[in-house]
C-alpha cells in the first residue's frame, strides 16, 4: 500500500488497541466483553496486515505469538474454571466474587457507575477470552494472507 495508507494505519493502530483493551477490561460494567473487545483488537492487527507488505509485517507480528495467545487464552479459561473445584464448588463457580482480594470489592447495589475492581472471576475470564479471540481471528487473516502472491 502507499505511504499515506501506511501512515494512517500506524496512527490509528494504538488507538484501536487501546479501545479494544478498554472494551475487554470493562466487560462487567458496560456493554461489550471478551469476544467483542478481542474482535476490535483483531481489527487493528488486520489493519496492519492490510496496510503493510506481508514480508515486513510478518516479522513484527509473528504467527507463533498469535498461536500462543490463542492457546493460552483457552487454557487460562479452563484453569480458572477448575480452580473452583478446589473449594468444593462446581465448575466455573464465581469463587472470587465479594472475596475481598483479586477483583473482590463488595459491589454497591442498585444502579451505579460501577467499580472496576468487582465481579470476581468475570473480568479474568473476559481477559482470557479476549486474548483467545484476538489470537484466533488474527491467525485466520495471517493464514489467508500467507497464500497471497505479491508482485
Amino acid at each position, binding site marked *: 500500500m502507499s505511504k499515506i495508507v501506511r501512515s494512517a494505519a500506524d496512527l490509528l493502530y494504538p488507538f484501536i488497541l487501546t479501545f479494544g483493551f478498554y472494551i475487554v477490561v470493562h*466487560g*462487567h*460494567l*458496560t*456493554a461489550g*466483553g*471478551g*469476544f467483542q473487545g478481542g474482535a476490535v483488537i483483531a481489527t487493528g492487527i488486520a489493519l496492519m496486515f492490510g496496510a503493510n507488505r*506481508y514480508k515486513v509485517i*510478518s516479522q513484527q507480528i*509473528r*504467527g507463533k505469538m498469535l498461536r500462543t495467545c*490463542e492457546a493460552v*487464552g*483457552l487454557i487460562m*479459561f*479452563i484453569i480458572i*474454571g477448575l480452580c473452583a473445584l478446589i473449594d468444593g464448588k462446581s*465448575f*466455573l463457580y*464465581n469463587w472470587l*466474587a*465479594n472475596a475481598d482480594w483479586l477483583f*473482590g*470489592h*463488595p*459491589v454497591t*447495589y442498585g444502579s*451505579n457507575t*460501577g467499580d472496576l475492581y*468487582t*465481579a*470476581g*472471576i*468475570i473480568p479474568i*475470564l*473476559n481477559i482470557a*477470552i479476549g486474548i*483467545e*479471540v484476538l489470537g*484466533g481471528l488474527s*491467525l*485466520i487473516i*495471517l*493464514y*489467508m*494472507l*500467507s*497464500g*497471497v502472491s505479491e508482485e
Partner: protein
Amino acid sequence: MRIFVVVMTILVFCGAFAYVSHSAMIRYGDPPYTEMDDYFIRNGQEQTGANNIVTSVVFDYRGFDTLGEASVLFTAVLGVGITLRKGSEWGGKEI
C-alpha cells in the same frame, strides 16, 4: 411442468409454515412473563458482583456455554490452519 410443480410445492409449504408461525407469534411489546428473567434482574448483581447483567449471565450463570463458544473458535482456527498449512494445495508460506 416439473418446474411448476416444484415451485407450487415450495410456495404451499412456505405459506403453511408462515401461517402457523404467525398464529404462534408473541405480540410485539408484550413479552411473556418468565421466572428466569426476574431472578437474574433481582439477584444478578448480588450473586456475581457484576453491574452488567448480560455479562453476568454469559460468564457466570451460563459460563459453560461460553467455554463451548471459545472451543468452537479454537476448532475453527485449527481447521483453517490445517487447510492452509504450508505445502498443502492452497497453502502459502510458513507462518
